[in-house]
């Protein structure tokens, strides 16, 4: 079976730290940062980047549409 590696890019300035993306990730990749953005929100980030498969689940549930997803197929 082909394996995928993915990565997300969060627009941290527009993330509202709502946390809705966290349980949507099947691979427990996402955490909320200790730091805050200029609005005071604990923005999301890849706490566990190696586990990201690029499935895009997080990005499709993000109410603010601030997650962009990339994915590559690994040669096996």
């Amino acid at each position, binding site marked *: 079976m082909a394996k995928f*590696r*993915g*990565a997300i*890019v969060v627009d941290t300035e*527009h993330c*509202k*730290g*709502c*946390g*809705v993306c*966290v*349980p*949507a990730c099947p691979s427990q990749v996402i955490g909320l940062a200790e730091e805050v953005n200029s609005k005071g*929100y604990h923005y999301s980030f890849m706490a566990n*980047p190696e586990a990201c498969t*690029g499935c*895009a*689940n997080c*990005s*499709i*549930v*993000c*109410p*603010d*549409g*601030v*997650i*962009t*997803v*990339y*994915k*590559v197929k*690994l040669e096996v």
Partner: protein
Amino acid sequence: MDIKEIIKPENLVYKKTGLMTDNPLSYCPGCGHGTAHRLLMEVVDELGIVEDTIGVAPVGCSVLAYDFMNVDMQGAAHGRAPAVATGIKRCWPDKYVFTYQGDGDLAAIGTAETIHACNRGENITIIFINNGIYGMTGGQMAPTTLPGMRTTTSPYGREVEMMGNPLKITELIAQLPGVHYVTRHAVHTPRAVRKTKKAIFKAFEVQKEKKGLSFIEIVSNCNSGWKMEPVASNIWMEDNMFPFYELGDIKIDGQLVTK
């Protein structure tokens, strides 16, 4: 593998559609309105109908929907979006016309406009965001508020004996012959989002084929009005809203779905 090797334009699998403007959404963190807007715009984008789509924004938290959706839009007085959409569609029968309305807008002040547009079988699409509350004005009880649910105007919970039963307006309008497609969805999980998007595609298809009115209810959270954190509000919604507002198709191809 280095992250930098993954984050390259050729590896892009998802980004926000260009039909959502770059204006930061005015919604509370975690509110489903944003997700619903984006899905609607993704469908318009993927169908390639941006030049032929006209939306009508409501009064409610999504009153500024025209600042966020990059299609032609018109505002309407509270609850009157289906009447305004009727006028637009009758002038331009080949345009795709949708309304986007909350439960206070659609099922309280706009009940008459909703029922009659549906009964006339106007060839439009209604997107109905049911969060069981008046979000914008500070969380007052709506006709859709669940029995026992606390709001600022039912602080001890909705008492059915005094305040009446919640209104399943979606089931009501499904009875009307002019209504072709009625379905109820949610936007809080990846699975729910995918289903809702399919339903919106179908609704626009119905409109293209001029088969009658299509009506999509999206049961959504109002974490601020419900006084919960966003993720907790989504769990509360699954446990409390979904048993009453059951998800799934209610009417397909003009036929009521028998469960």
